[in-house]
């Protein structure tokens, strides 16, 4: 019957307990702050405008759909999950994205990927990544150009956010991400030659590294607060590093180093904030490990052989697809049940 529940326990023991769902979401939002702050420091206030706009869209869209679905709006908004989706999508977009781009992304995330599937807890795909992937394939010009680090208020910030900047001028403002640049160096160019030409604007690589470390710090906070378990981040980063190392050792002149893969792009952000979304991830511990390994492997594969410079969104969505299968095949054996003897695996279920 359990008259006792973790959040009703007002003892010292409470510190070790899992917080309730709503505060779980809020903790994740808090943990994104170091990453967002570091990004803003290097890439300007456009990062913050992204996050605020996306969060506002998220809450407004969630409220609108809940109203259409005749659900208690106040109660369900209180879980902060829409806010979190907004923060995560906002943090993934290129700084100072135009408002309409964010709006389209959030419609895909909240309305299509989340609410149409039944709301919190029922979405098979990570909402923020659905939004991101839709934008990436629909508006590649806006999505692949990333302004080089140039202080808090870059040129044309407001025009960019308002969407009034002519596309021709966009190019002049933006550069490529390190992953993008490396991808398009061409087969004939060796890695050492590529780096020797200092292909990126001053400080870009350094900025990306700091941002990566800031996401890592937020992730460690989540682990320490027991908001997420170690299984998915460790498995994902582990498989990514192992694969990247194998490629790098096989041909260092063409493949990027594991450290490069780890610290640039969305690797650490994805490992701690995206892949760990419990709703769309595998549930059993074994399933989570497989899920993480799959994401890491897909990220490296797509980055190395695919058409996109970064791949966290696609990797996560592809592994979301595999979750029902992973869950089915990773059912733990209950204590006292006989070991599976014969028959095809999963036949019991």
């Amino acid at each position, binding site marked *: *019957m*359990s*008259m*006792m*529940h*973790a*959040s*009703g*326990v*007002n*003892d*010292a*023991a409470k510190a*070790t*307990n*899992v*917080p*309730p*769902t*709503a505060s*779980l979401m809020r903790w994740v939002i808090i943990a994104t702050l170091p990453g967002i702050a570091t990004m803003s420091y290097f890439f300007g206030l456009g990062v913050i405008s992204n996050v605020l706009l996306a969060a506002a869209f998220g809450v407004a869209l969630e409220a609108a759909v809940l109203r259409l679905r005749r659900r208690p709006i106040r*109660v369900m908004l209180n*879980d902060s*999950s829409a806010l979190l989706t907004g923060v995560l999508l906002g943090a993934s977009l290129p700084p100072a994205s135009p408002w309409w781009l964010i709006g389209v992304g959030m419609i895909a995330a909240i309305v299509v990927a989340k609410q149409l599937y039944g*709301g*919190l*807890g*029922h979405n098979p795909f990570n909402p923020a990544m659905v939004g991101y992937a839709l934008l990436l394939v629909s508006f590649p010009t806006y999505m692949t150009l990333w302004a080089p680090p140039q202080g808090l208020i870059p040129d044309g910030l407001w025009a960019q956010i308002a969407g009034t900047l002519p596309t021709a001028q966009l190019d002049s403002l933006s550069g490529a991400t390190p992953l993008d640049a490396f991808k398009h160096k061409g087969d004939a160019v060796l890695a050492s030659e590529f780096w020797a030409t200092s292909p990126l604007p001053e400080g870009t690589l350094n900025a990306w590294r700091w941002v990566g470390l800031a996401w890592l710090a937020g992730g460690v906070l989540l682990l320490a607060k027991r908001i997420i*378990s170690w299984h998915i981040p460790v498995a994902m980063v582990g498989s990514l590093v192992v694969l990247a190392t194998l490629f790098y050792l096989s041909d260092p002149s063409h493949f990027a180093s594991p450290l490069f893969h780890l610290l640039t792009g969305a690797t650490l952000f994805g490992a701690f904030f995206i892949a760990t979304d*419990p*709703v769309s*991830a595998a*549930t*059993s*511990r074994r399933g*989570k490990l497989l899920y993480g390994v799959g994401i890491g492997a897909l990220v490296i594969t797509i980055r190395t052989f695919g058409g996109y410079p970064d791949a966290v969104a696609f990797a996560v969505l592809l592994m979301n697809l595999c979750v029902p299968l992973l*869950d089915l095949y990773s*059912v*733990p*054996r*209950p*204590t*006292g*049940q*006989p070991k599976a003897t014969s028959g095809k695996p999963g036949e*019991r*279920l």
Partner: protein
Amino acid sequence: MPSAYDFPGGVYLPERKQRSSQATLIEAPLPSRVTLPLQQHSGQPATPCVAPGDRVKVGSVIANREGMISSNLHTSISGTVTEVTTAQITIESDGQDEWFRLPSLDWRSAGRHELLERLNESGIVGLGGAGFPSHIKARVDERHAIDTLVINAAECEPYITADDLALRHYPGEILEGAQIIAKLCGARHIVIGIEDNKPEAIGALQQALADSQPVPVELTVIPTRYPSGGERQLIKKLLDLNVPSGGLPADVGVLCHNPGTLLAILHAVLDGQPLVSRIVTLTGEAIAQPGNRWVRLGTSVKELLEEAGVNHSALNQVIQGGPMMGTPLLTLDTPVTKLTNCLIAATLDELPPPPAESPCIRCGECESVCPVALLPQQLHWYARAQDDTKLERYHLFDCIECGACSYVCPSHIPLVVDYREAKSRLRLQRIEATKAEHAKHRFEFRQARLAREEAEKQARKQARQAQQRRPSNTATSSSEKVDLRGLRIAHAAAKASVKKAEKTLARVAQEDPKQSLDDLEMQLATAQENLKAAEWQLAQAREQQSPDSASKESP
């Protein structure tokens, strides 16, 4: 002592045991009236054997066990029976507290049958919570070889300290009770499993260990982690044995007993005192004098709480049992039974109701704390969807309902409530399915009874004839073929089927104390009728043959 083995999952709960464990164990005042339910044990309710107006002494039998899995019931005060209903017996006290005791038994010299009969007569049942009749449990060695007797002193639920206090006050007696059970079931080791949050009880046991004879006793202190007191979890922790799903500890050669039960067993054997009282923990913030009391069975919960100084304005709910697996009492006008180990008078702050349920976010926290390694979240999903096939395949019936999953759920989903509902729904379906089977068994029973009566009649008739014939000394014609061998085989087969029916009944009853046992009792009765019929036939055949053989031998 470090323990190398572990069960999966588990949670660390606030213990809240200090309030009741600090107070000394005292006798609760003698109640002026007791209400004794006929069902205070698993199996069939007992049948009353007293009528209103009867005078009874403490320890007189007032209801007899009914069927195989059942238990006798005794009065807990001396006085007059005032009411006998189909559910309970009420007795008014005469204030004398006169006792009726059975003679003392020396368990070392007493025979097995004598000891079992004593347990049966004394109405001893498992006091840990399930209330399984101890005399049936003690006969487990007829079907399984028992190697180890485990004393389950983990007492892992918060608040409860009844076993703790019992161990501190009666360590020697409890160990002696364990020796009696070890003798009955043939155990060669006794292992005590106790959580490390009971240092005084551990100290008391360590002192008593040396004097415990003849079976060696080992004390294993385990870290405090809920639910280490679950039978399967404790066996895993102490002995690294996995009790098979749907099986019993006996399947791996283990028998588990609660310290309180062992104490009651010793009292029954040594003092001839049936089960009329037990230790109850009274605790909770709404009580002024928390502590453990020796309480006569049938005492009203209300009186007990009043005496302990309950503050009605602060009281929010009274929970019988622990806060994890216990049940809130709907009314305080309810008696203490053999199964009442703890009463928590909780304030609202102390055990607040859970906040409103929110959707499952599949965080998997429930899975990480499940001590059976189930997937609580999938079970929740399928329980709500009433997908019975999936529920069975995800092993719903392996759930021990410990509540660890509900405890940690960040969305406050009452998971165990879902599982209990699903389980009872599935049980109901099974019962529907077995109804036809049951009708068939009823018919078979009738047939068997008629056959037995017929055989009895035949045998009597023949006996009469034989008596008439004997004086004339005319032997029955040897031409009348008596298939003695065939009858002997039939008799042995009937005997075997009685054994089998008993075994099934015992197993089912022990596995699932809540299940109705009518059908199995009926099958057992059928087998018994068949056996009687076979006995009569065999006796009759022997009777027929003996004159033959006599006449053959004489020449």
